[in-house]
């Protein structure tokens, strides 16, 4: 009973949404949009679980005397501080629709001073990781790696003015050896071929995985078959 009802729900809901796209009369065309809104509402409810978990796990560690106690406190203070600032709307009201761009809002100040800089800084460390990965991974160790290396090298060259001038002296009859030409063609042909095959494969994987879920063949997220 505890196991069967969820499976029946998945089957009905899943089948409904597969068929909905073929049924052009109300309520079907509007259904996906409506249920997407439900999904967001459910995510809102789930925050109670997630936020609760964050607080509990952090507080537990503090209580047990974790060596990083000080930092765990920082997390808690940051969390409750931002939550208070947002819910009590310090510095002015947050407009409906969640627009918090009004001058003087504390929510906006914390966003601009801490949230956005941290987010952008972590993202930008990718520039460094991309370089160290290129140094390590682009080595002609075997045939596959060599193909990867050559494609990457041509594309990297094609993105610099240097690459363009390197082959500019070639006569027009050999234009297919020029870097800009190679750059564009590699992107448009073999790259597209690879991407397409991946996309087609993914689509098939999704069809089959969805079907396994709808039919109840795969159910580990509901706790497998063993209880």
């Amino acid at each position, binding site marked *: 009973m505890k196991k069967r009802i*969820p499976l029946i*729900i998945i089957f*009905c*809901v*899943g*089948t409904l949404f597969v068929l*909905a*796209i073929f049924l052009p009369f109300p309520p079907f065309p509007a259904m*996906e949009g409506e249920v997407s*809104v439900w999904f*967001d*509402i*459910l*995510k*809102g409810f789930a*925050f*109670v*679980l997630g936020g609760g978990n964050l607080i509990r796990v952090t507080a537990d560690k503090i209580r047990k005397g974790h060596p990083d106690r000080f*930092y765990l406190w*920082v997390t808690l203070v*940051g*969390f409750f501080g*931002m939550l208070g600032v*947002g819910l009590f709307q310090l510095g002015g009201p947050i407009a*409906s*629709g969640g627009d918090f761009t009004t001058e003087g809002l504390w929510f906006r100040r914390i966003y601009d001073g*801490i949230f*956005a*800089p*941290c987010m*952008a*800084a*972590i993202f930008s*460390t*990718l*520039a460094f990781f*991309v370089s160290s990965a*290129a140094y390590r991974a682009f080595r002609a160790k075997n045939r*596959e*790696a060599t*193909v990867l*290396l050559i*494609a*990457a090298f041509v*594309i990297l060259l094609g*993105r610099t003015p240097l690459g363009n001038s390197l082959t500019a002296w070639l006569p027009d009859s050999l234009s297919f050896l020029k870097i800009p030409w190679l750059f564009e063609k590699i992107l448009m*042909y*073999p*790259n597209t071929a*690879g991407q*397409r095959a*991946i*996309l*087609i*494969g*993914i*689509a098939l994987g999704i*069809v089959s995985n969805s*079907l396994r879920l*709808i039919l109840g063949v795969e159910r580990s997220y509901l706790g497998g078959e063993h209880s």
Partner: protein
Amino acid sequence: MAMWDLIVLWIGGVMTLMIFSFLYKDNPFYKFAEHLFVGISAAFWMVKAIQTTMIPNMWAAIWPKSVTAILHAAQHTEPNYVRLIPLGLGLLLLSRLIPRIAWLSRWAMAVLIGFTSGTYLVRYLQSDFIAQIRSTIIPLVVITPQGLDVIQSLLNCILVFGVLCALMYFFFSLEHRGVVGGISRVGIWVLMVAFGASFGYTVMARISLLIGRIDYLGQWLQSFWNIL
């Protein structure tokens, strides 16, 4: 620059440097920034969810009159009782907090998973299966008024055979041996070209991000200069 903008910029600059310090090695400054960011961002998204979803899409839909003070548009709307369904599902989800009835939360989860699988199934079939097959159907020979275009024909062949070989690589039923092995080997090369190209192409985006940050740190330094 207003006083507050300046303070925000200063804090932002310091936070940026704290994050960057991780590149040297893990250290107390990074730890501080990391833990602060986790706490603040978790609350940020929570507040956002309340303000952009829970109030306007659920509360205001079920009981518009109660929120006219913050949501002026709600004045003219009729209650939409369909939104009682997500409210009910949300309560089911929260049953996890009470161990004795926690299994009820699986019902809500089942609705979500059913929705995801149903919509994904047809959408990907349409946009990534059918549409990509359609785009790959091209003539293998290209003839221009000047005659046969050898290079373009070759490129078209690369595209078509590239897709075929790479698809062969994904076959689950066939071991990669013999002819199948040969074709899927070519398929791997096609995938490798795609990965190499994709990686090389992406470098630009990543550098752009760093340029943006360094530009920001430049402004930060300049703000000191202006004060002096």
